[in-house]
């Protein structure tokens, strides 16, 4: 019976054709994994809404810098009346604004930009985690990837790359744009004199990327769904932060307690990269940066170990 | 069981007899196996008329928004096993949900044991094993079934007793302690079946109970279904695994595009498909003196002379057997087989094999839904 059926199926117009060609090494599959992950993220409207919000912060900095430097060129030498405060030179006024708003092209500008943008990134990541990784575990796509000639860490690398591209798209890239803008607005010498800032920006970007990527991959493959993931991230970054500041600033515990605030740890190391000058008072309440680096390294390592175990475990259980 | 079901009409008769005869007997056997709580309405409810069907769907339609799921379906069941077959998306699951009172028909009405299917009274008579498996994953199998029993309204001790009995029946008694999360698909099916059997319902509605079960488990399930049917229960089973269904019953309902395309025994339905003459393979043994197959040709020629034969085809003989296969296409199977018998007896053929190629449920379904040749 089977015989006659297969013969009935045979006269098809389009036959199966063999394919012969050279295969590329497994490492070549890292980018396709990342590309597909990013694609599924870009398809979500939610992503674009939050990205635009994140862009608003960038635009604030961008036009802030531009307007102040434009105003400086426009302002004359004449002093202006400042209501009941007395007369003032507009140039000094603008300098004052710049100092207050930290829009002076110094380390503090980029540091502030990173922290504001970081909040947006965290929100988006919490939402994106399930799309990027959680879904693979939830819908059983993992066998699809792992049955291909690639190792576990190719898969992790691909997914990590997607998260990294996305984080840098929101933080490092705009920060670099601000850096270039300031150089163009002020003078070309800025690029030579403050080359350390460029290195600092990249350094902060790397710290942020590595930590957040690993943390996201680990939490997303653990929790899988969006809502628990958002709750987890809120706990990690919001409640830990509240708790840390309550313990240290309020109850006068040792500043080492601040280490549980991961976001603070990232900022500390980032600030170190940018070489931000802290005020004495603020420094008193902060743990030493070495400890912060140790905590971040430890957390990243734990996440990595968990990931490697996790990706393997699912495959065995199925 | 007597061989009544061979002819189309006796099948129906047998089913009715089953109900009439079992009117009391079922309940006695039921009380013997599982002590009923005093509140069980099966005993309190007025006895339905002996002729009233256990399940009656009258012109039932159901929409999901603009999509029609079930389109004016009429169906009557009394007892025994009925298979519900059809393609994916034909409306089988919707119909089963309507029958179990999970959905309410937009048009028409459904009665179970004389009660409207949407009412709680009807649900006491219906056991439902849904297709989807959504459990409380952190419960153990036993806890799950027991809480279902409690939901049926049984007191704690009774619920426990019934849980054990149901688990025993589905072969899960020894391994129901584990967390549901770790169950295989077959074990999940067994647990679903156990909760449907808890209150010993008269009508069991099973949606794809055989999917995902290994061959050993499948054998046990078929056994259990046969046993339930023998105790007078009425089973409505939807399945894609037609070979398995064929082993259980030949009474099927075919659904297509939200409608019931045909109800009856497979043979009945097949005989109604006049456009598709039956294909029958006949292997005739060669005489020992012949190396080629004149017997095969002689038979083919004789068959062609019969009234109902539409065509005859000679097949190549299988390599290691001394037979000559012929495939006949014939209308009016009843008369054809009579004439074939006469032919065999009068002209001394030795038939090694006589097989209808396209009267299986699968072939009937194929003809009915697409008119394709199997």
């Amino acid at each position, binding site marked *: 019976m089977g015989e006659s059926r297969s013969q009935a199926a045979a006269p098809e117009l389009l036959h199966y054709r063999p394919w012969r060609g050279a295969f590329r090494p497994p490492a070549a*599959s890292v980018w396709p994994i990342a590309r597909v992950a990013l694609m599924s993220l870009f398809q979500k409207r939610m992503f674009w809404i939050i990205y635009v919000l994140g862009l608003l912060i960038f635009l604030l900095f961008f036009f802030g810098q531009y307007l102040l430097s434009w105003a400086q060129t426009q302002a004359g030498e004449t002093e202006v009346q400042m209501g009941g405060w007395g007369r003032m030179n507009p140039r000094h006024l603008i300098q004052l604004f710049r100092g207050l708003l930290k829009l002076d092209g110094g380390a503090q500008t980029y540091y502030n930009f990173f922290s504001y943008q970081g909040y947006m990134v965290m929100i988006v990541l919490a939402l994106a985690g399930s799309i990027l990784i959680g879904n693979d575990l939830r819908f059983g796509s993992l066998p699809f990837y792992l*049955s291909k000639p690639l190792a576990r860490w190719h898969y992790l690398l691909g997914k990590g790359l997607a998260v990294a591209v996305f984080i840098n798209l929101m933080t490092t890239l705009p920060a670099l744009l601000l850096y270039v803008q300031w150089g163009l607005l002020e003078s070309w010498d800025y690029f030579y004199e403050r080359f350390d800032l460029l290195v600092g920006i990249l350094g902060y970007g790397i710290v942020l990327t590595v930590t957040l990527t690993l943390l996201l991959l680990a939490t997303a493959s653990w929790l899988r769904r969006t809502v628990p993931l958002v709750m987890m991230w809120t706990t990690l970054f919001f409640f830990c932060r509240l708790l840390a500041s309550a313990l240290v600033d309020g109850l006068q515990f040792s500043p080492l307690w601040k280490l549980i605030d991961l976001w603070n740890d990232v900022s500390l190391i980032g600030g170190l990269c940018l070489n931000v000058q802290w005020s004495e008072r603020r420094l008193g309440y902060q743990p030493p940066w070495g400890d912060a680096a140790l905590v971040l390294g430890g957390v990243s390592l734990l996440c990595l170990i968990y990931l490697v175990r996790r990706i393997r475990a699912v495959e065995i259980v199925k | 069981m007597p061989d009544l*079901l061979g002819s189309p009409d006796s099948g129906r008769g047998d089913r009715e007899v089953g109900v009439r005869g079992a009117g009391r007997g079922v309940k006695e056997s039921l009380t013997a196996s599982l002590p009923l709580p005093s509140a069980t309405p099966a005993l309190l409810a007025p006895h339905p008329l002996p002729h009233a069907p256990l399940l009656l769907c009258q012109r039932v339609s159901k929409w999901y928004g603009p999509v029609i799921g079930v389109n004016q379906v009429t169906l009557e069941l009394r007892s025994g096993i009925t298979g519900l077959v059809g393609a994916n998306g034909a409306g089988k699951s919707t119909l089963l949900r309507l029958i179990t009172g999970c959905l309410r028909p937009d048009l028409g009405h459904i009665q179970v044991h004389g009660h409207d299917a949407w009412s709680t009274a009807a649900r006491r008579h219906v056991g439902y094993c849904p297709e989807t498996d959504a459990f409380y994953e952190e419960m153990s199998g036993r806890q799950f079934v027991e809480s279902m029993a409690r939901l049926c309204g049984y007191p704690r001790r009774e619920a426990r007793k019934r849980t054990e009995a149901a688990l025993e029946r589905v072969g899960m008694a020894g391994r129901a302690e584990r967390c549901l999360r770790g169950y295989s698909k077959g074990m999940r099916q067994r647990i679903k079946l156990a909760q449907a059997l808890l209150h010993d319902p008269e009508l069991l509605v099973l949606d794809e109970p055989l999917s995902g079960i290994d061959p050993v488990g499948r054998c046990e399930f078929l056994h259990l279904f046969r046993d339930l049917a023998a105790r007078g229960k009425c089973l409505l089973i939807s399945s*894609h695994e037609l070979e398995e269904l064929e082993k259980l019953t030949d009474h099927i309902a075919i659904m297509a595009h939200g409608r019931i395309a045909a109800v009856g025994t497979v043979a009945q339905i097949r005989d109604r498909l006049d456009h598709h003459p039956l294909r029958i393979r006949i292997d005739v043994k060669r005489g020992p003196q012949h190396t080629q197959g004149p017997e095969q040709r002689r038979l083919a020629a004789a068959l062609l002379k019969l009234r109902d034969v539409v065509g005859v085809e000679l097949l190549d003989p299988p390599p290691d057997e001394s037979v000559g296969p012929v495939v006949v296409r014939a209308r009016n199977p009843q008369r054809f087989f009579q004439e074939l018998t006469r032919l065999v*007896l009068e002209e001394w053929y030795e038939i090694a094999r006589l097989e209808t190629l396209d009267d299986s449920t699968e072939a009937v379904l*194929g003809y009915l839904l697409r008119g394709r040749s199997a």
Partner: protein
Amino acid sequence: MGPITANDNQAMIALRHLSHWYGPFQALRDVSFQLAPGRIGLLGPNGAGKSTLLKILLGLLPPSSGGGRVLGHALGEDSAALRRAIGYMPEADALIPGLRGAEYVALAGELYGMPRREAQRRAHEVLTYLELEEARYRRLEEYSTGMKQRLKLAQALVHDPPVLLLDEPTSGLDPAGRDAMLRLLLTLGREHGKAMLLSTHLLGDVERVCDTVLILHQGQLLLQGGVAELCRRRHDRYRLQIQGEATAFCEELRLEGVRILHDNGRGELRVAVPPNWVTRAFFALADNHHVLLRGIQPDDEDLEELFHRVLNEEGRHGRESESGGGA
């Protein structure tokens, strides 16, 4: 048998004393076999170790002890090259929501190591071949069960592997879909020389597609061989389909020395006949008792009976050895 892979005379799969433990639980016990390229059915009840065996063959799990070769690649050595030679169709849906059909298959091609453009071209070709032409640009969420199964087959075929590993390829399909899938597999095996290992619960699938069968039970290989050779030929058994009142007919059969082994109550009898029986006698008896004889088939053992026989023998054997050990 049709044209087969390049390494014709080499075995497709050769395993030697392969065992695997998950902690204290032994999933595979000393499995050894050699298989020539062909269509192989892998059967066994739940927990028999089928999935574990598939994982090991894919190079995803290293065997705890023993070893083997798949298409000349030693297990556990170059698993990337091994997986490149295999198309794996997983049992789970394994889809990536948000992608379109063609993108999904192209991604699979890229992951196998095909250049991007080649993968995309080939994806369209394979999808057309599998009759998913119209669905290529639809999102995977909109696919029906039957389409999903064919899509999973497409992603396993995209790089034209010599071997396919198929895990429950017909689960969830309706009869027409299942028929189409089995026909596809048979054509791929017969006409395009694909070797395949088919793991399934449905014995009918194996019967229709496979020429060789492996039966696993509790991690042990119970049986291996050609389906046709393994099933017992029983020349004295027949299955009869009759229509009409059969009591007298059955009585008469008994008087003639025919044993009625089983009567399913719906007109099908399984009988054992005495030596030198001629089938014409069935017709004569049926004619005498006004019963219509609609079918006579030699009742050789089918795969299902074989499966249960082997499992029962094993069960009896196991019990005997256990009780022997206790005493």
